[in-house]
C-alpha cells in the first residue's frame, strides 16, 4: 500500500484528479477486502477473537486473517484488558504496523475499562487514551458475530478514505440496522392460521 500511497501523492501534486477517480475506486475496494488483523489478545476477549477465526465463524471468508507479525497487518484488534504495564508494549506494536492502519477496540475493557473502571490501580481506562481507535465493539466479551460486524463496519470506513491525502468519499457508513425501514424483523412466512391451535370443540 505504501507504494500506492506514494503514487497517490505524486498524482495529487501533478493535479491528476481524473486518473485518480478510477484508481481510487479499485484500491479502496481492495484495501477493504483484505484487512489482515494483528490479534492483540491480552485477556479473556481473546478467546472470542480466536473463536471468530476458526471454522465455525470463519473470519477468513471476510478477508480478515490473523497474522502474528505487526508488520504484515492492517488492523490491530485489541481484545482484552490493557494494564499499565502492557500499555507501552501495545503502543510499540502499533507503531510497528505499516500505514495505513486501523484499530478495533473489542470488549468493554478496551472501550472504557469495563468492569475494571472503578477501584483499580493497574488498568488503562480505554484504549483510546493512547491509540486512535476506529471501531468500538461493546460486550463482555462480544460474540464473534459482533466482532465480525465491527470489522464489516471498519471495511466501510476504509473504503471512505481516498488515495489522495485528506480526501474522503461520502458513503453510507452503517450496515442495515433493524430500525431501518428496508429491514424487517417480521417473519416473511408466518405460520398459517390453520396450524395455530384450532379450537376443535
Amino acid at each position, binding site marked *: 500500500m505504501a507504494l500506492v500511497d506514494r503514487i497517490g501523492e505524486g498524482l495529487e501534486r501533478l493535479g491528476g484528479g481524473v486518473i485518480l477517480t478510477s484508481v481510487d475506486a479499485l484500491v479502496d475496494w481492495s484495501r477493504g477486502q483484505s484487512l489482515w488483523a494483528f490479534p492483540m489478545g491480552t485477556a479473556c476477549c481473546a478467546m472470542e477473537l480466536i473463536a471468530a477465526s476458526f471454522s465455525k465463524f470463519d473470519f477468513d471468508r471476510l478477508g480478515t486473517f490473523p497474522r502474528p507479525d505487526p508488520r504484515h497487518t492492517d488492523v490491530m484488534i485489541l481484545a482484552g484488558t490493557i494494564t*499499565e*504495564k502492557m500499555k*507501552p508494549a501495545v503502543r510499540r506494536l502499533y507503531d510497528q504496523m505499516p500505514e495505513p492502519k486501523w484499530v478495533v477496540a473489542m470488549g468493554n475493557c478496551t472501550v472504557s475499562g469495563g468492569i475494571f*473502571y*472503578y*477501584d*483499580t*490501580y*493497574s488498568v488503562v*481506562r480505554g484504549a483510546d487514551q493512547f491509540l486512535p481507535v476506529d471501531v468500538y465493539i461493546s460486550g463482555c466479551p462480544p460474540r464473534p458475530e459482533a466482532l465480525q460486524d465491527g470489522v464489516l463496519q471498519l471495511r466501510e470506513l476504509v473504503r471512505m478514505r481516498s488515495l489522495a491525502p485528506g480526501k474522503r468519499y461520502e458513503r453510507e457508513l452503517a450496515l442495515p440496522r433493524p430500525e431501518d425501514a428496508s429491514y424487517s424483523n417480521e417473519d416473511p412466512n408466518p405460520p398459517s392460521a390453520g396450524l395455530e391451535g384450532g379450537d376443535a370443540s
Partner: protein
Amino acid sequence: MTQDEMTALIARIRTHNADLYPLFSLEFGDAVVGVAPEELSSTACDLREAGFDRLTMVTAVDRGETFELVYRLHSRSLTASIFVKTVVRRDDPHIASVYDVWPAANWQEREVFDLFGIVFDGHPDLRRILMPYDYEGHPLRRDFEHPNIIRRPDYI
C-alpha cells in the same frame, strides 16, 4: 500423609526451633505453622529436608501494624501441603528470602515486594514485576492511594 504424621512432623520442627509462634492448626485441612521472622530460613531448610520440595505460593496480608507473610509448601513424596506464616513490622518490612531453598520464590517474592513493599534480603533480583518499574506506592497495602484510582460511587 495422615494427620498424626503431620502433627509429629510439626512437633519435630517445633523442637528444632524452640521459639515458634503459637499459630499452628490442622483445623482446615492443611497444617499451618507459624515461625518467628528470624527463624524463617532455618525452618525453610528443615521443611525442605523433611520432603517439602515445592513452593506453591508466597503472599502477604496487611494486618495494620504488621504484615503477615504466607508460604504454601507442597510435598510430592509425602502428598501433603503445609502453610508457613510469619510476620514483619510495617515500619521495617524486611525478611530473609527463601530463594536459596526454593528457586521458585524468585518471582513470587518479587510480586509481594511489588504489591506490599516487603523487602526480601538476599533476593537476587528484587524489582517490580506486575506494575511498571517507575510506579509509586504498593497497591495492596490498605492505606494505598493513587490519583489515578476512581472510587466507586455508592449508587452503583
